[in-house]
């Protein structure tokens, strides 16, 4: 059956079956439904509370967090993280901030650019460094938008994912975050902690197909 015929048949089947059921009062207008985005008050009080909430939730979901106040500090923190993990091959995304921070990391590590890597090489990397476009305080979630950065694979394949996030980009709730996103990005990814499974006897294992370690470098400052 050609797809066009199938489409017509299915839509027809839907309409016929809907019509055959007795009518009720019509539901309220769609505009009143939908998610409830909560707007948080801006200003220092609001932001500080939000940052604290975010870092608490990050810890609750098993992600690491280091607060830094400059790119220099970020580079130093990143160097420490990589050294502690014994990470030798590191790949950074195309975000200029990431490239600058990586360039400032002293360590004896090999830094690659994603475009130059074959698939096998990507799979052999120890760590991927990206930014995150948003953080969600309520849930300790990082939000990555494909239109803003090429971070989809770097936040997935290497066993360590380091994400640089500006404190100004932390929103309060899931609803808030959804309201800020646009589907100009063909892939938006929400990341809440490391990858995990409890499929074997309900025993939690951290680090399955996605990263085993998620580390957020939280950047304060202007």
């Amino acid at each position, binding site marked *: 059956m050609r*797809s066009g015929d199938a*489409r017509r048949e299915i*839509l027809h089947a839907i309409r016929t079956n809907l019509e055959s059921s007795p009518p009720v009062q019509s539901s309220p207008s769609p505009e009143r*439904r939908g998610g409830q985005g909560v707007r948080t008050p801006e200003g220092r009080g609001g932001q500080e509370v939000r940052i604290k909430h975010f870092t608490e939730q990050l810890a609750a979901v098993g992600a690491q967090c280091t607060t830094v106040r400059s790119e220099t500090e970020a580079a130093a923190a990143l160097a420490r993280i990589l050294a502690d993990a014994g990470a030798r091959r590191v790949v950074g995304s195309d975000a200029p901030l990431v490239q600058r921070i990586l360039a400032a990391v002293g360590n004896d590590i090999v830094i690659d650019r994603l475009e130059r890597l074959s698939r096998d090489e990507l799979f052999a990397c120890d760590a991927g460094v990206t930014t995150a476009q948003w953080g969600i305080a309520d849930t300790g979630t990082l939000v990555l938008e494909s239109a803003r950065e090429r971070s989809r694979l770097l936040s997935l394949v290497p066993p360590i994912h380091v994400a640089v996030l500006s404190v100004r980009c932390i929103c309060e709730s*899931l609803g808030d975050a959804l309201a800020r996103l646009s589907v100009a990005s063909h892939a938006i*990814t929400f990341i809440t902690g490391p990858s995990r499974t409890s*499929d074997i006897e309900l025993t939690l294992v951290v680090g399955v197909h996605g*990263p085993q370690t998620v580390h957020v470098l939280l950047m304060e400052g202007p």
Partner: protein
Amino acid sequence: MTFERDARTALADGQLRGALRQATTLFGERRRAALATVPDWEGARDRARAIKDETLEHLDRYLEEFAANAERAGACVHWARDAAAACDIIGGIAERRGARTVVKSKSMASEEIHLNAALARRGIEAVETDLGEYIVQLAGETPSHIVVPAIHKTKAQIAALFADKLGIAPSDDVATLAAAARDALRRRFAEADLGISGVNFAVAETGTILILENEGNARMTTSLPHTHVALMGIEKVIPRFADLDVFLQLLPRSGTGQVLTAYQSLITGTKRRAEDEGPEELHIVLLDNGRSRMLASRVTRQALACIRCGACLNACPVYRQIGGHAYGSVYPGPIGAVLSPQLFGLARSAALPYASSLCGACRDVCPVKIDIPALLLHLRAQVVAEGVAVGKGHLRERLAFWIYATVMVRPRLFAWLMRAVRSLRIMPPLGAWTKWRDLRPLAPRSFREQWRAGLGDQRGPDA
């Protein structure tokens, strides 16, 4: 009857029952703790149900809107009337790609249509990448739970399975076993030409599909291969992007007690620029396979609101005892008992509407407030009205209810009959009761006899 036989097998399996008890108890506790973190849980359930009702009421419109927006973003949208059509479409895409191996992330719809078998007939190997599904596939079995498909297997059984199929040394360390699966599957992800996924929600307003998971295998499946095929039941569509909020609040908490799963992927069409990461092609397959038929009645229609969280399985005292395999369907548990007969026909699943004590625990935990007991009663009435045979003894049952109805509309006959049973000590043939339970001996006089004998004439202290 298959259900009875399979239920008996399950009941005799002490290890299975222990695993089920542990899993359902744990998920129940975690769910209760998690919903306390939502300020207005009941309000969220109501909102979600209202969105689903609105969608189903205008399903044709929302599907058209979804398809148009998905296509505008670069996806290719296919419409499949039934399982065979869907398998044909997906098989065709795989063949045109020259794919020999495809990777799959969790999709119950793909199991509903027996996709793996259809692909195998074309010489294409489909590898399940969700750990529980991977285990079940290696073992040649079917999943026993919507969220934890391999809950019926011990780590010893899995260790033996991996030793046999993956050639690893047997280990009783769960992390080691998971790592073995990870290594085996990583190669597959890297090499796969085509990835097949399910869809949790499809947003009409934007043409976006959303996939929830914890492991990362769905992200691998949908971002690495050249081609991504997303299979979804037509009931998965929701109207607006903002609607995702309430469903993301409800689903993870209801299913596993998590606030959010580790990953949500929101995919809208294909890459916009050549240098973007991700598949070159996205094919979305819209599956009917009996769903449109369910729209005909408001009672049956509500089963299409299901978001596949698994909460009803965890709450069900019947499922807790027998597990998923006994239901004989890709959809087990309470939701399975009402969905399977409607998708696959009452004749094939006639026992399922009766596999319930109607306790209502499922209705209490359903995030979209599906009234499963009402649906079960509706299907039971259908079984009787259509004369569907449910196991042996159904003719005896019809006779029994004919006698019951005849007697109960005649109070004097009822009273006389019960007096006769009492004085003659007639035992009705209730071996199904007495094999395991004693029957309380009948009191010398019924209530109505006592009332007549003087209880009715007495007054209270104030009279």
